[in-house]
């Protein structure tokens, strides 16, 4: 009986391992525009686990990802631009995905968001530029995603907007010069914001709104109306952040003061030299 149980266990284990290996072996690499003309076609045709490599160019389309794929640019965000064809939709959306990745794109031109994650988990968003949209990056009901080296700047509203999203890690990103706020967490708990820049936004650098247990560490918030603002939020850890709201306005005044002192020193020195 015991031997039979062990045998069944080993068989199930072996089958699962084979299935995993088979999935990895079947992971294909799809090239855009070589294999498919648009990114959307490539995504629709891809299977879970596939790599989609996108060559440089401007792609006017809205991309919706609903499966575990890796979408990566070959030449980086400066040369690979996805511009929203339908402005009412996000430029790139991840919906109900676990473990996808988007790397190295400029995502622009949307009246909703450059990049939108909805009910997305364990995905990696690396080295993208979500600039000049309504929001740069939005997360809704999304958990345990990792964002690094992205920019979400010059957007009409927020750079990063997290709504009811928990346990995400946002590290080494920039959310500058947005017309409302740099990073806005709304009803979002246990997220980590580490080493980000959120500067020169019209209102707050970082806002926590009814959000609890978040970690804000070593972020830089300069020249915003307010640096870091927490509203109805508890148990958040704020450590090593630099918040200097508009302190650099003092610098020109100090320089003028130094200029006046410099004038007086020069005047007295030259008077002494010319004996006048």
């Amino acid at each position, binding site marked *: 009986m015991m031997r039979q149980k062990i045998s069944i266990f080993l068989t199930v284990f072996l089958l699962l391992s084979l299935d995993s290996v088979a999935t990895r072996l079947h992971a294909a690499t799809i090239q855009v525009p070589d294999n498919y003309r648009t990114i959307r076609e490539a995504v629709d045709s891809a299977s879970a686990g596939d790599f989609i490599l996108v060559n440089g160019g401007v792609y006017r389309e809205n991309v919706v990802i609903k499966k575990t794929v890796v979408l990566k640019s070959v030449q980086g965000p400066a040369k690979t631009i996805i511009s929203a064809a339908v402005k009412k939709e996000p430029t790139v959306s991840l919906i109900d995905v676990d473990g996808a990745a988007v790397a190295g794109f400029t995502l622009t031109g949307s009246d909703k968001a450059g990049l939108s994650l909805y009910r997305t988990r364990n995905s990696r968003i690396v080295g993208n530029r979500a600039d000049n949209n309504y929001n740069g990056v939005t997360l809704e009901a999304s958990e345990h995603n990792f964002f690094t080296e992205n920019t979400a700047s010059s957007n009409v509203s927020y750079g990063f907007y997290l709504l009811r999203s928990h346990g995400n890690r946002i590290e080494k990103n920039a959310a500058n010069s947005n017309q409302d706020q740099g990073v806005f967490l709304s009803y979002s708990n246990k997220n980590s914001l580490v080493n980000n820049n959120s500067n020169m936004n019209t209102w707050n650098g970082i806002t926590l709104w009814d959000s609890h247990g978040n970690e804000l560490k070593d972020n830089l918030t300069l020249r915003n109306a307010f640096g870091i603002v927490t509203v109805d939020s508890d148990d958040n850890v704020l450590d090593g952040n630099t918040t200097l709201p508009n302190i650099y306005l003092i*610098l020109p005044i100090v*320089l003028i003061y130094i*200029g006046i002192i*410099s004038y007086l020193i*020069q005047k007295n020195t030259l008077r002494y030299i010319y004996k006048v």
Partner: protein
Amino acid sequence: MWEILSVFTNISTVVASLGLVLATSSFISGLQLVRGASIVELKIHRYNGFSAIILFMILAVMSLVNSGVRFWPLLAWLTALSIILIKLYIVRKRKKAFKYVSWMGGTLILIWLFLVYIHIPV
């Protein structure tokens, strides 16, 4: 404190700051010169003024090299340069417009304030 001082690790901020200091000294001595000539004021005005113009040129070249030659920035730099040249022309020729020279000097201070503000790194 280090965060405030760290802005001076940026070379364009240093150049713009020095320019504002020199332009301020030049402006005050210029106002004194309008009231009456003095060798001391003249030396201060010219030395500080021309140093500030050289720094302005350096800043303009650095900006255009780093960010590329684009229409609006180029137009802004040329406009500021033309204000400097018009001010020099009025002072040299001493024509009717000379009475406005202190206003021109004030405009140059405002230009330097703007230059300092936009060159503070974020």
